[in-house]
């Protein structure tokens, strides 16, 4: 197994605050995995993302990206491997038009103009926004803005994509489009995705979940391992996926399965149960 991100005993506290924002975090992220970092607001998820992007001078511990320890002399090199998408795309826009905005990162890397035009067009096509190339970003809907932000990041060909609550401000339709798009991009570019979220349905899509509370890694595992712990999820300020919610509501009356049940499995199980009674 190659770990593309490897954190070893990482701790950090903000200068003016008591207590650690991150406390002794260790974990590995496998290349090509979609990893959900789940925790309530203020649990330290975003601080962790900053640490991985080398934006944080953490107090203790080490983070390796693709086997290389993040240090001052290689931080710019390492950061090239990482693309960051934030919650509010408005905080990320700099260009006067959609195309300018996508070009911004490439310009910073001195990509020649002809190559840049090709790359910008490619990126906009990929996210389905090419017909909006000359529009002002401010005139777009939330979902469209987030697609442009993604185009800007993907145009830089990162190996790791960090999504910091990238869908939390979108309406349900916008959310679904972005998530579908992300799945496609991940396949196409063999991206490793680290998705910070408190949306439990989004976490259910991941290969692996890191459960964070008060800056500590309190558990990790597959969705099936984490999402069956309903009481604990609620205690941590999170939610329970719908299938599990139904299962929990029935457990006093019925002998329900122990394993993780998404909505479809739960429907099938109840159907079989109904047939048995006939």
């Amino acid at each position: 197994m190659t770990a593309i991100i490897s954190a070893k005993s990482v701790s950090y506290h903000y200068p003016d605050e008591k207590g650690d924002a991150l406390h002794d975090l260790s974990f590995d992220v496998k290349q090509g995995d979609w990893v959900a970092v789940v925790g309530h607001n203020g649990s330290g998820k975003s601080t962790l993302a900053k640490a991985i992007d080398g934006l944080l001078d953490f107090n203790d511990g080490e983070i390796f990206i693709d086997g290389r320890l993040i240090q001052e002399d290689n931080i710019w090199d390492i950061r090239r491997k990482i693309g960051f998408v934030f919650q509010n795309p408005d905080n990320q826009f700099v260009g006067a038009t959609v195309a300018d905005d996508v070009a911004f990162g490439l310009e910073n890397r001195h990509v020649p103009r002809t190559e840049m035009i090709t790359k910008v067009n490619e990126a906009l096509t990929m996210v389905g926004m090419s017909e909006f190339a000359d529009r002002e970003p401010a005139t777009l809907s939330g979902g469209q803005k987030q697609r442009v932000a993604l185009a800007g990041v993907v145009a830089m060909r990162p190996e790791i994509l960090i999504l910091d609550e990238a869908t939390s401000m979108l309406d349900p339709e916008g959310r679904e489009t972005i998530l579908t798009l992300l799945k496609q991009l991940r396949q196409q570019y063999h991206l490793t995705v680290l998705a910070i979220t408190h949306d439990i349905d989004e976490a259910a899509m991941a290969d692996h979940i890191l459960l964070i509370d008060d800056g500590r890694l309190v558990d990790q595992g597959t969705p099936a391992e984490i999402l069956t712990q309903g009481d604990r999820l609620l205690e941590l300020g999170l939610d329970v996926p719908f299938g599990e919610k139904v299962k929990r509501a029935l457990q006093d009356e019925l002998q329900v399965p122990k394993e993780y049940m998404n909505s479809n499995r739960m429907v099938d199980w109840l159907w079989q149960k109904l047939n048995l009674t006939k």
Partner: protein
Amino acid sequence: MAEIEFNQVGFVYQPGTPFEATALTDINLTIESNTYTAIVGHTGSGKSTLIQLLDGLLKPTSGSVTVGKITVGHDSSNQQLAKLRQHVGIVFQFPESQLFEETVLKDIAFGPKNLGKTNEEAEQLANQAMRLVGLDASLASHSPFELSGGQMRRVAIAGVLAMQPQILILDEPTAGLDPRGQREIMELFAQLQQQQQLTVILVTHQMEDAAKYADQVVVMNHGAVVKTGAPREIFIEPKWLQANHLMVPKTTAFAQALQHHGFKFDPFPMTVAELTAQVSQQLESGAQ
């Protein structure tokens, strides 16, 4: 008693210019006093324009809007519009971005002071509002910017409540909060609506919240009200919801899937509790 009436309301942005855009057409809508109404519809369906008309931030281009005893039309003066605002409090999206005072108490007291209350009266109202939203009194002297996201939102909501509106409009009030924060804030509004006898209007994309809390659901599409009714009447038709770009609540989708497999529901469930009660009953009665 009808608290709010939209009578053939139309609204056009920048009429007579090349940028003319029709936002609302022929809106007829009655909202009874002391009820909970959810307004749903996809982005751009006219929800925001509708609530801005209610708060007197916009004037109807045609037709009239009545709130309590005040009616405004296209020829109403700004003073008349301002009168509407005294009855209506709006909690905008991400309301914490509007916090600005040095202390929590001062921030909450700002609204009532603006309405002409004395310092003392305003602070009293602010203290009361803090209790209503469940903010501990010890936080009064803190800077609102030291608080957590959920607490900051409570401060912003208290600031609206301190103005003692009869109508409370909530524009996506839980956006950006984590699940616990979302649950707490939605429960808070349900409680306030009951205890303070408020008329609550919730603008939301969360169909689960509309199904769970609203007495009446108003569905908007292309600047028109396409359907109004109790949640059960609205959320029972997934195909119709999808055609209007609305998500099907998870409970509805689940119950429909069970129906295809031989379960029967009457009444159609709107919450997980209603759903599972009927499911276990059918499993038991079948077993006997």
